[in-house]
């Protein structure tokens, strides 16, 4: 594992962001809009819902955590798509960099991109709505880790699709997270789902993350088993994502699509 190469690939994306003010603005804009939207929804439900009656900020905290997942996944996809859009794919894949180094670099840089967008939005939520994600305490780190790992896994699966089907798979990249969101039980408890969907939902880390978030905020309790379960499931999915990525990469080499990958 060569850290200089991992850094170099990350630097490519850091330069891309730092060279363009609209890109920085774009990274910050959407999470901020989300905070405003869900902040007002959260306020409304807090005042008018029995379920959320004494728990100001549960919905907004859920929105912030979900946005973290969303940004991690989209960041991973975007960085891969950037290579396709800029027709840099061949240069990248003939460079002496291991596939594992590419994955690590994209994974770490996705975190940087995500935090650039989310930190200002999360800070903004404190004075505007009196909600701080830090209320979750040390558990926050573990919940974010689990979300991040799952977000990157979704990114890996979408980029595997891009390798397999080419740039036409791009639309799926945007749709992937919306597909899983209903099963993630982000804003509602799992009991709302029909029994069959509950079984499927439990196989995702999202349910355990958001159930635990609600548990901490509403009951002031920490269920370590729930956190451990969410991380374990995320790790399993991550390993699965990496395997699929490798399969797609070797498949693309076999089909000869790496050399012509571009818009």
């Amino acid at each position, binding site marked *: 594992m*060569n850290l200089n190469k991992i850094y170099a690939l990350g630097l490519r994306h850091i330069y891309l962001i730092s060279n363009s003010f609209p890109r920085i603005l774009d990274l910050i804009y959407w999470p901020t809009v989300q905070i405003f939207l869900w902040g007002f929804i959260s306020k409304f439900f807090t005042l008018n819902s029995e379920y959320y009656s004494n728990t100001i900020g549960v919905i907004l905290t859920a929105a912030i955590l979900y946005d973290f997942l969303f940004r991690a996944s989209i960041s991973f996809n975007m960085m891969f798509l950037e290579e396709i859009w*800029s*027709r840099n794919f*061949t240069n990248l894949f003939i460079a002496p960099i291991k596939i594992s180094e590419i994955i690590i670099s994209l994974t770490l840089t996705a975190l940087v991109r995500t935090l650039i967008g989310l930190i200002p939005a999360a800070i903004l939520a404190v004075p505007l709505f009196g909600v701080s994600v830090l209320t979750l305490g040390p558990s926050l780190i573990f919940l974010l880790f689990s979300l991040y790992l799952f977000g990157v896994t979704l990114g890996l699966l979408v980029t595997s699709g891009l390798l397999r089907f080419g740039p036409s798979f791009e639309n799926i990249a945007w749709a992937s997270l919306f597909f899983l969101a209903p099963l993630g039980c982000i804003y509602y408890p799992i009991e709302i789902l029909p029994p069959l969907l509950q079984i499927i939902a439990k196989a995702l880390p999202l349910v355990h993350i958001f159930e635990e978030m609600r548990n901490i905020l509403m009951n002031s309790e920490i269920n370590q088993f729930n956190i451990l379960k969410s991380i374990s499931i995320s790790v399993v999915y991550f390993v699965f994502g990496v395997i699929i990525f490798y399969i797609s990469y070797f498949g693309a080499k076999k089909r000869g699509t*790496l050399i012509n990958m571009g818009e």
Partner: protein
Amino acid sequence: MFVQIKNLTKIYKEYLAVNKINFEIKKNETIGLLGPNGCGKTTSIGMMLGLITPTAGEIIIDNKNLNTFKRDEILSRLNFASPYVELPKKLTVRQNLEIYGRLYGISNLSKRLSEISSDLDIKNFFDRKTGELSSGQKNRVSLAKSLINKPEILLLDEPTASLDPDIGDFVRTYIQEYKKQNKVTILLASHNMNEVERLCDSVIMMKKGKIIDKGTCESLIKKHGRNNLEETFLELARRNDES
């Protein structure tokens, strides 16, 4: 032999793109890869770069089989330039070359960047975004990227395509000079016969995925009774092989 291509074959579903080609390249030799569009040149280069998995055959570089040896160790000794492959447009020339310098593990990178920017006369637009450059400027930057690691093997796919005669000549002269000063083995795919005659020690003619002839430019011209390489190319490309 420095590069050995043995029975290299690529089949895409039913389509035979490269059909059991065999050739060798000596160290520091420049070989031209010629043939009409769709004859398998790019596929062959793709296989040599490790971007395409061969259906059969072997690529041996300095006694190391590309299919079994560590990918990144062989790739660090190679590089590639083509007008059809670009560098990120939103990054400056300096940023792009810095990133590839790091990816290729270049020690004393700033010295190398200074060297190569002077050699290829790209210093005056070193801090401009790559997407804002003219074709000729982009081409020189692409060449700079391909030489950043001082490759032992350089694969060039139509390096002067779409360039005006002046810039085209600059690039050809630069490659000639670079070859004199550095030990480099070059495989050059081109449709410009003058370029091939000027740069290549010998040529390989491909058609429909096969090698149909090979030799020095002079020997091929003489063998086919033509006046120059362009006429020889046309004769081979248009010849009905069924007869």
